[in-house]
């Protein structure tokens, strides 16, 4: 893309109530009132015809398909309305969430129950009960809808193999091991499980996506910075390189919320990742909310230097918008707070992009994006934040015109 500072989405949008409810039960006209309101905002011209179909459909499977298709269309139009250049898959409306969505489509995996993540947040953790393999295409059906409706470039975010394995229990793979050391058994089980997930699940999926026309796949690997030990990082690199081997497609990595030394460790290994054209990373979360292109104002972005120093020469997807609850202070020209949300001003986005450009040395290597998916924000907030990211990118572009 020749435009400087193109804007991309990074993953999920919140799922509207009608989408969630409609997958469980038939909807009423009242249930679709929110959809009608957004249809006007997003220019969904055939909303009434689609709504009529959804309301009259008795068959659950058909209704589910229609609702998923419609919510994907809404997600894509929301990104287009915000002037996002690459609109992903419309906010991952067809997925439960990044982990469960995949695990449910894998033979040999069983969701064992919920474990604590933090506060009152939990996740349903899977266990490998036998050798894993793919039951059915995981992302390809969604991609076909996206391809049909997207007006702009798309990329397909997929959950990376290292994260899938790290967030699961190894079960079957541990039982197979014979080493006398429990630690050695765990390590060997993890490697075997990981390489099976790559070969039996992720590579077939990538093959299907590329056959269907996907030209950019974003591999989400939030777990990679969890284990900074060399052995684990080498394992991640081995799995990545095996994942992308032989495919002709743009690949990018998305990693966020690392441990304190996470980015430094990832930076060391990033140059070893084959075909990794872009690293899309979270930064806004750790930055100040005041304007400026000096190191103190932009303290959240200094870790970028590790990647440059380590020799990573690809693009950076720069997290310039916070995606979680915000409780800090913000100077009036850098944004404003609405409830629990920070709305970054275009000027703040601009300064973040310009500071990053100074570190990276080439504006053509910087994309603008939120830190992560916006699934915890309302659509109103997501639209406003993304629109400001797009305006901020335009301001940054003006600096180079």
């Amino acid at each position, binding site marked *: 893309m020749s435009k400087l500072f193109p804007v991309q989405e990074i993953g999920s949008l919140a799922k509207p109530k009608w989408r969630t409810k409609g997958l469980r039960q038939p909807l009423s006209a009242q249930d679709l009132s929110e959809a009608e309101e957004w249809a006007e905002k997003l220019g969904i011209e055939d909303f009434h015809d689609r709504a009529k179909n959804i309301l009259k459909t008795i068959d659950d499977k058909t209704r589910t398909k229609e609702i998923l298709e419609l919510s994907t269309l809404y997600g894509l139009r929301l990104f287009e309305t915000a002037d996002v250049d690459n609109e992903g898959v419309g906010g991952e409306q067809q997925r439960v969430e990044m982990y469960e969505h995949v695990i449910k489509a894998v033979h040999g995996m069983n969701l*064992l*129950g*919920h*474990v*604590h*993540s*933090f*506060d*009152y947040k*939990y*996740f349903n*953790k899977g*266990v490998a009960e036998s050798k894993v393999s793919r039951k059915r295409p995981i992302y390809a059906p969604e991609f076909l809808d996206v391809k049909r409706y997207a007006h702009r470039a798309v990329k397909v975010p997929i959950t990376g193999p290292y994260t899938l394995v*790290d*967030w699961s*229990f*190894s*079960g079957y793979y*541990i*039982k197979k091991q014979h080493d006398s*050391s*429990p*630690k050695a058994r*765990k390590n060997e089980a993890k490697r075997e499980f990981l390489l099976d997930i790559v070969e039996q699940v992720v590579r077939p999926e990538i093959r299907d996506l590329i056959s269907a026309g996907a030209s950019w796949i974003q591999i989400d690997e939030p*777990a990679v910075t*969890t*284990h*900074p*030990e060399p052995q684990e990082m080498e394992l991640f690199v081995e799995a990545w390189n095996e994942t992308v081997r032989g495919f002709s497609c743009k690949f990018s990595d998305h990693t966020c*919320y690392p*441990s*304190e*030394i996470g980015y*430094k460790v990832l930076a060391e290994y990033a140059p070893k990742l084959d075909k990794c054209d872009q690293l899309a990373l979270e930064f806004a979360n750790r930055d100040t909310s005041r304007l400026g292109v000096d190191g103190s104002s932009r303290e959240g972005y200094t870790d970028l230097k590790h990647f440059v120093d380590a020799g990573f020469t690809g693009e950076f997807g720069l997290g310039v918008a916070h995606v979680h*609850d915000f*409780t800090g202070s913000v100077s009036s020209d850098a944004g404003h707070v609405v409830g629990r949300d920070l709305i970054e001003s275009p000027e703040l986005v601009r300064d973040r992009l310009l500071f990053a450009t100074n570190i990276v040395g080439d504006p053509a290597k910087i994309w603008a994006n939120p830190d992560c998916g916006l699934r915890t924000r309302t659509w109103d907030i997501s639209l406003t934040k993304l629109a400001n990211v797009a305006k901020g990118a335009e301001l940054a572009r003006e600096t180079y015109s």
Partner: protein
Amino acid sequence: MSPEIQLAGIHPRSEKLIELTRSYERAKTSWGQVEFQLEQETRELIKLQKSLGFGYLSDGALAWQDQLRPITRSLKGVESGTRYSRWFDTNTFYQKPIVVGEISAGEIDPKNFLQTKLLAGEKNWKITLPGPYTFSQLSENKYYEKYPDLLVDVAVAEREIIKKLRNEGVSLLQLSEPCLVYQPYRETFRDESEVELALKAIRSVVENNPGQFVIQTYFGDASRIFSELLDLPVRGIGIDLFETDVSSLSERTSKTLVLGAVDSRESYVESPQWIADTARKLSEQVDVQDLVFASNSDLKFVPQGVANQKLEALSKASELFKGSR
């Protein structure tokens, strides 16, 4: 005598309690309903421990939101903030304590630590707390110029908290010190002088009642500092069997050795025979007289059903161990 079995930290919530807490967060359930279920599950867990022959009973800390929070909320000079950090290399997070002033014990409400009402009438209560070194390591220091000053103040404040908990009836305290053996969040691993500093802080916490403390290490290899740990004036030392190179342990000790013999980060339930055999080999190797079987850390990393099966495996292993002596 068969080895004692103990809980070693936070026990997982049931699916029912999980659903209630989620519903409470969405303002669809009252706190009263959550509390009722919490109490019921705590009772069930106490009952399970009794049925499996536990010598010390724990309430499982089912209400704790993370391993540090009750301590954080009991200290002056420490704020909770809203920043969450990863708990070592797990996929769980804790609210990072932010040190903004001189640390001292604040208002200490034992109910934030223990289900005192439900433990009343029981003789031996156990509680698990983060040790002073681990707590200070996992905090963000915005006040102290020198780290040792922070560590000393945490230790002094923790003594106050412990005093209050003892007054409530706690008779065994586990101080968890994973940072002594694993520091994935740091660029350089602690050196000998830092270990000495950490052990000094632990000594200052335990000095008046050494017989009531166990120092538990986990997620890392304890063999490298095993002899130093054995020098601590405490009742027992805990090691993680899934991380520690046990072949290199050779010291004899009269202390209790707490074996983290089931892995809290894996759902596979260890065979009681394997636990008993491993314990036997180790006890011969280090000539230890008194063993405790426990999980290597909080069992909250596995679903509750799995956690309970692991406790049963420990209980059976204890019987097998006794039978083989």
